[in-house]
């Protein structure tokens, strides 16, 4: 079975961690090469897009670049040889038409989707840190069904627009309505029982590996190790000066930083999906991971 294995997630949910795991597992990069993270590119990468298109992304309108994205996936699927073929994606899954005939990610270029999900209360904190916005603004983003990345800029220079939508819509769009083969991976499991969690993901991706290989890759992805490597040589994905990309990574940090009102807002907006994935129970009580 050929096609792309998508690493899909709402932003700041563990996608980078997962990419590093697969790069270490398949030995595409050496033990210290965290800055070769782009060897599993983002599907909205400017370099990838321009290579495929043969023109400057900056000469396209936002609408044009967005509509060309399925063609980019097709091109990537047909022009690359490495196995497994992986792409990172932060968009919610969507269709360009009401008849659902034109999906952002088409089944015929897809081997499967590893969907990484993280407690939205922790996502709020991590999004606020990464994008240098307030917690309040971050809460708004997770609850906004029109949320996107890229539209805010005057110039569509670096990336085509990414349609993110609200946190719940993001999850449901991939897990329920995409019609694709999906494996859900919880961030909290990646932390608490990494070997089991990553082994399942590797098997889903069709990677022929032993548990020893998985253990090795998991150890190379140890958060404190990545943090030390970043301190020593920097990390290409980091966009801020003076703040680490591998910053805290803790589960439950929201307890120190979110107000009761903010917690209530997230739980109210995302109740159904949070119950379904075990973040709260039916009485809205929080379940410790």
């Amino acid at each position, binding site marked *: 079975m050929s096609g792309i294995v998508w690493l899909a997630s709402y932003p700041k949910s563990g996608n980078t961690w997962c990419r590093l795991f697969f790069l270490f597992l398949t030995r595409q990069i050496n033990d210290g090469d965290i*800055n070769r993270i782009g060897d599993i590119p983002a599907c909205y990468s*400017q*370099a990838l897009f*321009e*290579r*495929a*298109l*043969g*023109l*400057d*992304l*900056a*000469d396209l*309108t936002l609408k*044009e670049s967005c*509509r*060309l994205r399925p*063609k*980019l996936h097709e*091109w990537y699927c047909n022009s690359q040889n490495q196995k497994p073929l992986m792409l990172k994606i932060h968009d919610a899954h969507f269709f360009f038409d009401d008849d659902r005939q034109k999906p952002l990610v088409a089944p015929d270029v897809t081997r499967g989707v590893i969907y990484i999900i993280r407690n939205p209360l922790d996502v709020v904190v991590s999004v606020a840190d990464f994008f240098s916005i307030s917690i309040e603004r971050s809460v708004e983003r997770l609850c906004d069904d029109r949320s996107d990345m890229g539209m805010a800029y*005057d*110039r569509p*220079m*670096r990336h085509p627009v990414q349609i993110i939508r609200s946190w719940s819509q993001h999850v449901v769009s991939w897990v329920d309505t995409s019609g694709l083969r999906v494996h859900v991976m919880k961030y909290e499991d990646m932390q608490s029982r990494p070997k089991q969690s990553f082994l399942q993901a590797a098997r889903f991706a069709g990677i022929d590996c032993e548990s020893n290989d998985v253990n090795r890759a998991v150890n190379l992805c140890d958060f404190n190790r990545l943090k030390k490597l970043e301190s020593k*040589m*920097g*990390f*290409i994905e*980091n*966009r*801020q*000066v003076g703040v680490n990309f591998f910053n805290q990574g803790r589960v439950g940090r929201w307890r120190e930083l979110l107000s009761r009102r903010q917690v209530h807002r997230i739980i109210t907006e995302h109740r159904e999906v949070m119950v379904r994935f075990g973040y709260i129970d039916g009485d809205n009580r929080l379940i410790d991971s």
Partner: protein
Amino acid sequence: MPNDYSYNVYGLHVVSQISCPELCPVGHALGNPDVTIGFGRVPDKLERPLKSGICYDAKDGEFLFHLENIGKYWVTDGRRICIEPACGADESEIRLFLLGSVFGALLLQRKMLPLHATCVRKGNWGFLLCGVSGIGKSTTAYGLMDRGFDLYADDICIVDFDVLGLPKVMPGLTHIKLWRDVLMDHRLPTDGLVRVRPELEKYYIPIERNGSNEPVVIKKIFILKRVVGQKVELQPIDGIMKVVAIRNQTFRRQYVEGLGVQVPHFMGITRLANSVSVSFVNRPSGGNSLDEVVSRMAEDFES
């Protein structure tokens, strides 16, 4: 034909059925044109292309570029461009892709050496600013203009060699394309400026070459790069790294293989690498380091 327009660009005499205000017009007969641009039927794709992208097919002597709602362009033998505009396409949009990707393919077919760069000069010497789109080439060039440099060429810089073997840049388009935010930073009003496309906040600004269209000798190539780190660094490069670094600045490098021009292209690159010094200008990926970048480059150029 009586309604054709006549231009000189990259040292080529171009006769076109489409008016191109971004090219330098010539008022007198120059004999047979090097390149003709006209309208006509264009196939949807090339038969048996050597390489294809989402918007192009390429093979030896032929190149086809297509973009929905803009049109199709067919480039043959480095001499002819045939355009079939899409219904309702705006003429400025047709020109944008004609003078960018399509001309890039034509120049490669002619075995010329097009680099994706901005050229600034002081006196008889100039340097090239290279780097990916959005890295800040235009902004840096405008910063250098505040320090006594002239803007000479933008986007496609054609490199040739004079009788002494010195590398030089040929005069190219008469305009630079700038985003609104760059114009604002330099207090340049957008009133009266023409947008490159109706929907984009990007404008054509005339390049004032102070009346001189003579080629400029290249003293140095700077390649702007975002890096992990905290400070601006000029990193001279040599040997095979230098060849690779220059090759990576080729305008529409992805076309080279499909057009079957790898050998002359590589020879041009190595000749250039043997003739100029090249430095990476490493910019920290976070924060605003532009002023320091401009200072360091200006100092390096004068040294």
